[in-house]
């Protein structure tokens, strides 16, 4: 399995690469070379930090290349900011559009007495037909660190509660995103990445 990991210079890829390789994937990294996207069997867009960093995807031409790969049916997984990028945009960087695969936008957690960022291990309420989260049982935890989040919609694959319910995973066809860090979520996270690598079919 050949996985293309997109580097848009927003933090460290080491952990994601390590987890994918641990699961037996061959990994390539691109920060702008579009040719490898053509032969990718899976695409992973990691991401920590600021939504504005996704600007680089537009500047390098990666955005249309990823859009084309998704249209070909290549399974795509966005992690953290990489998930948020699948939406129309984020109030973190209002002038920077996302991919718009999902029509809604991401927003900061509401003001409350709870701390923002949301950091730590939290649980998932998994949609029964999610292929990405197959085998994740109630009461399993994953690791989050973020201040912005996606809204709960019909495409939401898992809901997590912190201040308010938000989409901790999204899934429609071959396009998936997780707000948490599966590469840092112990056995549960590896199970989710393994589901992504081993899902059958391309659509």
């Amino acid at each position, binding site marked *: 399995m050949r996985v293309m990991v997109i580097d848009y210079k*927003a*933090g*460290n890829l*080491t*952990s994601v690469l*390590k*987890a994918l390789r*641990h699961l037996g994937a061959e990994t390539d990294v691109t920060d702008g070379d579009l040719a490898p996207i053509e032969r990718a069997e899976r695409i992973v867009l990691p991401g*920590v*930090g*600021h939504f504005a960093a996704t600007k680089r995807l537009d500047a390098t031409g990666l955005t249309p290349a990823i859009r084309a790969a998704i249209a070909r049916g290549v399974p795509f997984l966005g992690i953290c900011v990489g998930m948020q990028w699948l939406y129309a945009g984020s109030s973190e960087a209002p002038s920077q559009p996302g991919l718009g695969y999902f029509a809604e936008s991401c927003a900061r957690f509401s003001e409350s007495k709870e*701390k*923002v*960022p*949301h*950091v*730590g*291990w*939290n*649980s998932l309420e998994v949609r029964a037909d999610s292929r990405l989260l197959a085998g994740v049982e109630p*009461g399993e*935890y994953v*690791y989050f*660190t973020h201040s912005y989040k996606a809204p709960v919609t019909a495409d939401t694959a898992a809901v997590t*509660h*912190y201040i308010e319910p938000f989409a901790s995973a999204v899934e429609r066809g071959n396009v998936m995103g997780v707000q948490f*860090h599966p*590469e*840092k*979520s*112990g*056995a549960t*996270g*590896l199970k989710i990445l393994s589901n992504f690598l081993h899902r059958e079919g391309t659509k």
Partner: protein
Amino acid sequence: MITKRIIACLDVRDGRVVKGVKFVDIIDAGDPATQAARHASEGADEIVLLDITATHEGRATLLDTVRRAARELFVPFGVGGGIRSADDAAQVFEAGADKVSVNSAALADPMLIDAIGRSFGAQAVVVAIDARRDPEAADPVRDAQVLVQGGRKLTGRRVVEWAREAEARGAGEILLTSMDSDGMRTGFDCELTAAVSEAVNIPVIASGGAGTVNHFVDVFGRGKADAALAASIFHFGVSSARSLKEDLAKAGVSVRLPC
């Protein structure tokens, strides 16, 4: 529901885990990579490796240790000790750490916090603060002092004010060690931890003083800590993070179980 984190801390010198109380009676306690994997498999929510190697030659050893420890570790992994520049931090991240903690270097040059945060994101920067109550002050807790050099030297900074500055500069978490409690096994400094936790909007990790399970219950309740560092408690009767968390759950603390 968000859970309280138990972070297993390994003190490492010259590539070996060491344990000791207040830096005396330091003994060899094994290989850091093996110990990190063991703590993760025994339920720790996060692993921190604190390098207490003082020498320049030790840096290469540390990077090798981080690389080996990170290889099979799939929980958050922090590294602290001797990180003096954004370049030092970059090397540690490249070796496989998810977070770095900075302490005296950030006090000497607070811009270091901004620099690491800009390159690697706020979630990757932990500012470690060694704190001591100021018994002379009108409010010994609110006016607690920041120390460096293993608690030997005063900096003139106040803990709450420094924590706020660290947050404003882009720190993602505060690791607060009470030098009054450290090594005493009489409990965390809950008043001080609460004062810092209420002053900032980022997670506060409590450290120093744990001797019993109830000390953790206290610091998560009264101390308003988001996470707690567990080090020597594993040498004194509490067998693992899992058993600690099972006891915490019985006491009503929300923790990641099963793990």
